[in-house]
Structures are given as structure tokens and as C-alpha cells.
């Protein structure tokens, strides 16, 4: 239900990952009234995903296991708890924002419970300014057999262990491209899985061509060295210019066929068959842009091929009052996200943004951006990746649209952009709304037209009228009388009870 909100917050922050936590805590500490909305049940986002509290309510004793930069998270969580206790910060976990619109005096935010067990909090809110920190998820490329159970997004395989101490598989291959494959592989191994290899499509030594950028962020080099040591300790072979060319199995993963990619990014499925029960795949990250796009924020293509929001050096977008921080402005990791979120929190709360603190933050942002750029250039999606697809390979998992169907649209029906391919084939029109296949569909459409994906290809697959599925009862509430600001027309703050569901354990 969308209970009409009472008075507007100075600032609403969406997302309690590294960027959102920093923005919310910074703004609240500066005296602003802040609403922090998060789909997760605990702060930290995907990067600092951790197990829930012990039965007595205390933080889980092993919550730091497998984490990186955990001290930074603890500081942010202390800040969060202090601001909540001081009454300056209203933290509502377990709520997904599905719609943001412009409404006096700034923005109207509609939310729905992530699942039925979420503690009841109001569904709608008003805020004068808005900071969106939606993060991102593993970027995916289809490969024959990738719909078999046992194939997981690399981040998903990691999340099972980090969040709930469940092991995703016993014999795993971690494949794709980018530095994120390393913590996923070493994390699985530390949790007890046998990791038969990290198959990196790129040739990461090419980042040595960008040594000045790497040297500006010495902490990252130390982190990388730590992963190399962990790979050795767990005896995990690290193969470059290597890909999963095919996933084999009937009703679940049984094995993978190894392939190589040449310097031009053209694959050859010439490797052996390796038995595994878990395939963890990730090709960098796709920022979650549905909320910025709902508000019409300007976007651009980043160096990694992702669509990202254009922001100024205070994280301000071209939409008045709207700030964006973290991966949605360019994939670059948690430290960068915290710096951006802090800047956004200062600026969005109307704090003076001159001076030593902001200069230092901006310098940190610049250094991490340069480092991220070097990493992106060293870990490109192979230019010829579509070469490992077969005609019957599913591209869109939800609607089961295969390559032959996409090719029919591009070759026979002359579709030459992602939007047309989507309309003709239903690729990206299922439950996930293109979150999994959007990048691949955009690549295939562009490839058929003999060009690289353009921003409009990616916008076509990233624009979503609803940012999350919403029960029809909640949609219907939008039509009921009672303008925001008027007293609530209903008798309770919890729309979930309308579905007859008991309020379950929340935080």
C-alpha cells in the first residue's frame, strides 16, 4: 500500500550500500532529516553483505569473515546507528523502491516490501532532495547451457556464503572477466569448495600499461597481491584468455568446456571438458539505472561499456535536486562509492562543499576513477563473444528467446537497434525486465548493424516503468483519494496486512 506520507524529509537516500550509507550518515550528521531506504535487510549492500544478528540480537560473531575493508563498514554502521538513535535518520530496510516521480517539494518515492516478512513501514515518502545509490549486479553474457541450474552469477555465488553461510557448490569454476572473480574464487575456496580454476577472458597484465593510474591507489595493489597469495594457498589455477565456451548437463550442471580467446577477442572452443557442479559467471557489473532513468537523468557510456548517470563533481545530476553516487555513476568499487556518497551527502544536505575535506574527497574520487578505468581497459568483454553462441542458445532467460530468434529480427526484419529487437522478440520483456540479458541484447543488435552499442541501445534495455514488481493492491492504492500531505486515509501503516499476510520477523 502507498500510505500518503506525512511531512517531507530534507533528503531521501535509496540504497544502503557503501555509497548510500556514506551519503545518509554524512547528511544526517550535518543536521538534515534523512530517510534511508534499502531493499536489503541489513546495511552494507552487496559489497558488505553479512549474516544477520545472533538470536540475542547482537551482531553475528563471524560477520567479518570474508569481508574487505570491513573497518570502513563498521564505522559507517556506527554512524548509522548513532543517527537513527538521535532521531535524524529514518532507516527502512527491506523496502524496494519501485517508482520515483517529481512532486512538490521535490520527489515522491513509492516502495514495496522486498518480501512478506519485512517489518511494516510506510510505503510512500516525500523528500526535497534525493540521492540514488542503487549499485549494480554482475554483468552477464549468454553462453550455451547457461540456463542450467548450478550456473550462478559470480556475485550470487558469493552472496550465498557472505549472507547466509550456504555453499553454492562443491566443485566450481569462476569465469568471465575482471578483478571481482578473485574474491569470489578465494571466498568459495575458503568456504570449502574446490575451485578448479579462475578463467579470465582478458589478459590482465595489460593493466601494467596503466601503471601511473594503478600507483595512485596503493591499497588496491595490496588487495590484488592478497588475492594472488590466496589463489596460491588454495591451489586455484588462474588462466587468462580463457572462457567457459559451453556448459554441459541435462537437468543441472555437470561440466564445462573450456575455450580460449585470441588477442582480438575471438573465441575458440578448443579446450577440455572439466567436471564441475558450480559455474560462477561475471563480466564486470551493470549499474542499476531504472530509478535515475525514471526521473530522466542524463546518461552516458562509460569506458567499460556500461550506461551510467552523468554527474558533476558534487554527484549532482542534470535533474534539479537529484544526486547519484556509487556504481550508477561508473563502476569503480566500494572505496570510490564511499567517497562519492560522502560528497553527495554533503552537497545534498546543503553543506558548504568547499574546503579541505571536499578537496581530499574529490582527489580520492579522481584517483579511484583512474584506477577503475585502467581495470576496465584491462578486462574488456571479448569483442567476439557472440562467437560462442549457438542458434539455440537462450539469450533472454525469462522469455527463452534464443539467438536464432534475435538473428531473425536483425537479419530478416532489419531491426538495427536494441529497442526494435526487444519489441520484435520479447527479449528483455520478462520478469527481470532485461536486467540479465539487456547488455547482451544491445550488443547483438549493434553487432548486426555493424557498430558498437550506443547509449540508446542500453537505455532501451534499462528503462523500466516499474523498478520492482508491485502487488496490484498497492498499485490500486495510488488511485485512491488522499493527496500526499493529507492525513492517511487508511488505518495502518502496513499495506502488507491487506494481503492477509502476518508481519514476519523484521529488523
Amino acid at each position, binding site marked *: 500500500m502507498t500510505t500518503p506520507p506525512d511531512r517531507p524529509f530534507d533528503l531521501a537516500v535509496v540504497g544502503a550500500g557503501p555509497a548510500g550509507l556514506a551519503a545518509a550518515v554524512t547528511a544526517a550528521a550535518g543536521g538534515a532529516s534523512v530517510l534511508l531506504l534499502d531493499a536489503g535487510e541489513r546495511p552494507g549492500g552487496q559489497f558488505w553483505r553479512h549474516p544477520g544478528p545472533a538470536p540475542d540480537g547482537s551482531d553475528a560473531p563471524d560477520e567479518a569473515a570474508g569481508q574487505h575493508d570491513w573497518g570502513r563498514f563498521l564505522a559507517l554502521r556506527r554512524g548509522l546507528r548513532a543517527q537513527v538513535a538521535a532521531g535524524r535518520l529514518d532507516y527502512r530496510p527491506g523496502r524496494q523502491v519501485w517508482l520515483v516521480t517529481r512532486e512538490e517539494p521535490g520527489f515522491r518515492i513509492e516502495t514495496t516490501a522486498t518480501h512478506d516478512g519485512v517489518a511494516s513501514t510506510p510505503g510512500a515518502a516525500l523528500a526535497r532532495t534525493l540521492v540514488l545509490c542503487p549499485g549494480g549486479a554482475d554483468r552477464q553474457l549468454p553462453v550455451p547451457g547457461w540456463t542450467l541450474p548450478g550456473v550462478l*552469477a559470480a*556475485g550470487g555465488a558469493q552472496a550465498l556464503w557472505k549472507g547466509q553461510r550456504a555453499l553454492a557448490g562443491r566443485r566450481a569454476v569462476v569465469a568471465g572477466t575482471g578483478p571481482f572473480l578473485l574474491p569470489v574464487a578465494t571466498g568459495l575456496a575458503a568456504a570449502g569448495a574446490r575451485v578448479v580454476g579462475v578463467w579470465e577472458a582478458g589478459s590482465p597484465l595489460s593493466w601494467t600499461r596503466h601503471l601511473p593510474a594503478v600507483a595512485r591507489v596503493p591499497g588496491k595493489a595490496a588487495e590484488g597481491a592478497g588475492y594472488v597469495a590466496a589463489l596460491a594457498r588454495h591451489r586455484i589455477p588462474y588462466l587468462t584468455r580463457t572462457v567457459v565456451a559451453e556448459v554441459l548437463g541435462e537437468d543441472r550442471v555437470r561440466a564445462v568446456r573450456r575455450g580460449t580467446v585470441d588477442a582480438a577477442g575471438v573465441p575458440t572452443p578448443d579446450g577440455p571438458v572439466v567436471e564441475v557442479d558450480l559455474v560462477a559467471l561475471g563480466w564486470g557489473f551493470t549499474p542499476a539505472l531504472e530509478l535515475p532513468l525514471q526521473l530522466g537523468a542524463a546518461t552516458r557510456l562509460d569506458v567499460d561499456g556500461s550506461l551510467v548517470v552523468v554527474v558533476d563533481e558534487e554527484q549532482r545530476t542534470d535533474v534539479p535536486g537529484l544526486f547519484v553516487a556509487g556504481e550508477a555513476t561508473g563502476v569503480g568499487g566500494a572505496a570510490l562509492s564511499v567517497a562519492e556518497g560522502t560528497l553527495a551527502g554533503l552537497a545534498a544536505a546543503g553543506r558548504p562543499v568547499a574546503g579541505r575535506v571536499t578537496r581530499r574527497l574529490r582527489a580520492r574520487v579522481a584517483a579511484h576513477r583512474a584506477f577503475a578505468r585502467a581495470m576496465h581497459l584491462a578486462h574488456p568483454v571479448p569483442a567476439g563473444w557472440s562467437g560462442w553462441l549457438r542458434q539455440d542458445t537462450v539469450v533472454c532467460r525469462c522469455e527463452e528467446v534464443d539467438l536464432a530468434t534475435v538473428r531473425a529480427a536483425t537479419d530478416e526484419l532489419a531491426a538495427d537497434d536494441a529497442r526494435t529487437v526487444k519489441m520484435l522478440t520479447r527479449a528483455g520483456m520478462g520478469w527481470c525486465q532485461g536486467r540479465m540479458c539487456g547488455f547482451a541484447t544491445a550488443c547483438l543488435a549493434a553487432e548486426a548493424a555493424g557498430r558498437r552499442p550506443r547509449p540508446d541501445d542500453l537505455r532501451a534495455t534499462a528503462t523500466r516503468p516499474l523498478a520492482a514488481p508491485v*502487488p496490484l493492491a498497492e*498499485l490500486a492504492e495510488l488511485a485512491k483519494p488522499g493527496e500526499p500531505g493529507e492525513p492517511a486515509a487508511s488505518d495502518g501503516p502496513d499495506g502488507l496486512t491487506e494481503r492477509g499476510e502476518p508481519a514476519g520477523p523484521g529488523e
Partner: protein
Amino acid sequence: MSGDDRQTVGPERLTLYFEGRPVPARPGQTVGGALHAAGVTAWRETRGRGRPRGLFCGIGMCFDCLITVDGRPARRACLEPVADGMRLTAGAPTEIGSVETAGPQETDPREEHHDHPA
């Protein structure tokens, strides 16, 4: 299960019932995490090709892991917290498209707004 005794996600055991079959779980896990770790990697079939699906993204974005929980259809297994005695049933292909949820439609909610009588 992982067989790892370092885990502190609730030491005590819960029992879920997947298609009537007991599956162990621990407090703090999700339905998807508990099923997958117990070796149950698929719990629905796709509408078109009848292919098995379970977890994929693991973080609530891909909707591959939809499952019926205590009669409530189309729950994301990767987000749904476990509870002792929970009854889990595979989503029949026909149920997936008919759940009372606005999701995949290419509709603008603001249009929806006008369609509903006040």
C-alpha cells in the same frame, strides 16, 4: 549442506518441506540458499520449454528462482527467509504468469492510475 562448522547462521536446525520432502535449513538463511545448499538446485520449470530453473543472480534481480511458499505463489526464493515447517512447492508453469503482481508488463503505472476507479 556445506558441512562447515564455522557457520554461525543459527546453529539450530529448521526443517522445510519441498514437495513434501524434508530439507534442512538454519535460521537466517533464505529458502533459495537452504534448498541450493541441500542439493535441490531447481524448483520450477519454464513456461516455454519446460526447463528447470533455480537460483541464478542470487540477489533478487533475475526472478529465475520463483517458488510457491506456504501457498503464496511467485516468491523470490533468494530473498524469502526460511521458517520452520515452511511448505515449498514447485511453481507450475501456468502459475508463473498469473500471479497478482504487476511486473513484466510494458505499462506505465501512471496510466494504471487512471484505469482504476477511485
